[in-house]
């Protein structure tokens, strides 16, 4: 210890006390190769994990000897941070790979043109679920957007004092409502009115609205706040009433951001399963009527077919994974649309 501290300051060369650049890749590759070969091909994942640990110990020891304790700690943390990111990508890769490999075989025409009515064994499709998802989500959007948008307008343009603060606080609270509680609420509401055990598409839409409204309020509020005040003042100066200023100046300026927020809110609720399990239910037939009878949605289709499969029935499992794949693709498409809206319809902001 004492020897080390005495020798360190003496080295004056800039390159001394530094590992050459090739150390990291060489050590990593070496550790991985040795460990995977050691554990054999049937335990490939274990080999990679062990290799990473060996590399970590190796690089920290080497660096500790050559570069000193501080550099060694830095390298240690760097490795951990990179490892954290790589670990996080494992589930993503695994989910995408499984969904693609198990979902593609049934991604055929029948899946989009048939329901599950009268289907025994193989075949059948999720048309009823896709239609149900679209209708219920559309209904939820039609409920949530006016309420959410008007609330955000109130908060930004009108709201002052305790009421506005209360609304802001309770919108925050609403963001934290667990989705199953929203489902319980919609179930209680509709079963009190229509009798116990009521199931319908609209009750599912109400449950989704409870989850969607706070998201819409949040994002729209943010977008309305970044509209420059100069625009409003210019409009007032021309004698335009406040409400027309909001409708004709403020909203068009922020519409791209608001739309992005709405699309993202749709993406958030379109994959919800739990509230719909309690409210919209599952049925094998087509149902176009939101107000009468059970209505299947895609997430519930996935859940039900998985449950029916018992993990062993291949026809059911295939349908479940194809449903999952379609669901993922829909959510991804919505995210992409949101990004495109944000990019292409955004007004040119002053000063940027």
């Amino acid at each position, binding site marked *: 210890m004492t020897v080390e501290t005495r020798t360190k300051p003496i080295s004056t060369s800039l390159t001394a006390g530094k590992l050459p650049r090739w150390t990291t890749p060489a050590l990593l590759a070496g550790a991985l190769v040795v460990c995977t070969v050691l554990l054999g091909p049937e335990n490939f994942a274990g080999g990679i994990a062990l290799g990473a640990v060996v590399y970590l110990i190796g690089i920290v020891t080497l660096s500790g000897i050559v570069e000193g304790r501080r550099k060694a700690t830095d390298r240690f943390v760097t490795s951990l941070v990179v490892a954290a990111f790589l670990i996080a990508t494992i589930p993503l890769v695994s989910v995408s790979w499984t969904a693609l490999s198990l979902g593609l075989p049934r991604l055929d025409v029948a899946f989009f043109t048939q*329901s599950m009515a009268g289907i025994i064994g193989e075949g059948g499709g999720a048309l*009823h679920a*896709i239609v149900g998802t679209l209708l219920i989500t559309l209904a939820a*959007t039609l409920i949530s957007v006016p309420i959410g948008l008007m609330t955000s307008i109130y908060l930004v343009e009108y709201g002052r004092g305790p009421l506005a603060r209360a609304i802001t606080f309770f919108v925050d609270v609403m963001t934290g409502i667990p989705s199953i509680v929203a489902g319980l609420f919609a179930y209680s509401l509709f079963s009190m009115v229509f009798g116990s055990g009521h199931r319908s598409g609209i009750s599912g839409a109400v449950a989704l609205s409870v989850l969607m409204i706070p998201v819409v309020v949040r994002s729209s509020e943010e977008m309305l706040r970044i509209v420059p005040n100069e625009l409003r003042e210019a409009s007032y100066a021309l004698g335009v009433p406040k409400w027309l200023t909001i409708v004709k100046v403020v909203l068009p300026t922020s519409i791209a951001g608001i739309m992005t927020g709405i699309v993202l809110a749709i993406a958030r609720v379109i994959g919800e399963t739990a509230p719909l399990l309690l409210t919209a*239910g599952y049925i094998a037939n087509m149902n176009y009527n939101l107000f009468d009878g059970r209505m299947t949605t895609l997430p519930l289709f996935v859940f039900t077919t998985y449950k029916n499969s018992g993990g062993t029935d291949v026809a059911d499992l295939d349908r479940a994974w194809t449903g999952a794949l379609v669901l993922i693709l829909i959510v991804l498409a919505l995210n992409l649309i949101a990004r495109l809206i944000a990019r292409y319809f955004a007004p040119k902001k002053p000063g940027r």
Partner: protein
Amino acid sequence: MKITRFAGAALALATAVSLVGCATNEQQPTTAAPGGESPATTDSPAGLTGSLAGSGASSQGKAQDAWIATFTNANPGVSIAYDGGGSGAGRTAFAQGGVEYAGSDRALKTAELDDPATAFQLGTGTQPWGKCAADSGIVQLPLYISPIAIGYNLDGVENLNLDSSTIAKIFSGKITKWNDPAIAALNPDATLPDLAVTPVHRSTNSGTTENFTDYLSKTAAADWPFEVSGDWPAELTGGEGAAETGDVASILDSGAGTIGYLDASRAPGHTVALKVGDQFVKYSPEGAAAVVAGSPLEEGREPFDLAVTLDRTTTDPSHYPLVLISYLIGCETYADANQGALVKSYFSYIASTEGQALAGEQAGAAPISDDLRAKVTAAIDVIS
């Protein structure tokens, strides 16, 4: 005006939804469902129209799906929905008048029939059995007989013989290893591994559990002192819990050393042979049908209330006593005569040899005996 553009987008979406149109497999009754069989030629009167709703036991869900598919293919004007949410939910929905018929893993008790308002917590002024005509009686028909299999996952053990007291010990956690002497004594030829036993049971209320525990408490009371109930005994905290029949199948499929009871329609490749009398019997539809045929009807019931008292302690080796009977419950007289005709026709199809054979094919169910069919047909005949 961007807002109108948004409204336009919403309208476009709505149009897209309506353009998606109808499912190609619906409203084309002449084409048989893919993978299904040709529509059965039942003696149902032509030109039936209307819709029926049923609710109840998940055990007969798969059979109901098959029956409905075939029946509605043969009768294009009819639509039937069966919601396999559970027996309790089905009985209550039927009592409250939510559905036209119920599926239930046990017959309605006489107390429930005598005083439905209390048993099902009906609101004051609600007519019990809401879909029935006033003062109509109830029919209960044992139309779905399913053996309960005990599946296991044990490499290298092709056949496993167990008696009820060993099964009781396994599921109550007294036997923890597969090479336990009690198991070895029953299976002298098998090489049993030194592996932990993981018993799998249903964690939600289920008719399968009720029948399984009933069997154990009737045949091995000393080793199974627990109450017979649809809920797994709370005293037993060991083992793995599975919410649904499908979950039991999936656990049996993936875990070495697991053993669990489940509806035979989902039975895995390896199932236990039960000791009946002095022989070991694997589950089979024939064995299940035989034990039901050999069991008496419950006494003190109305003539068309066909509740069966299962003979669990049978010693006849052609019987398989671990059986679940699921009933179809309907009205004698419906308030709506058209619905009465529909129910009558649908129940007749289910009771027919075709209907019973289809359930056997699709769900591993046992056909009812001719003797029982005669009684069931007599009961169906009164439905109107």
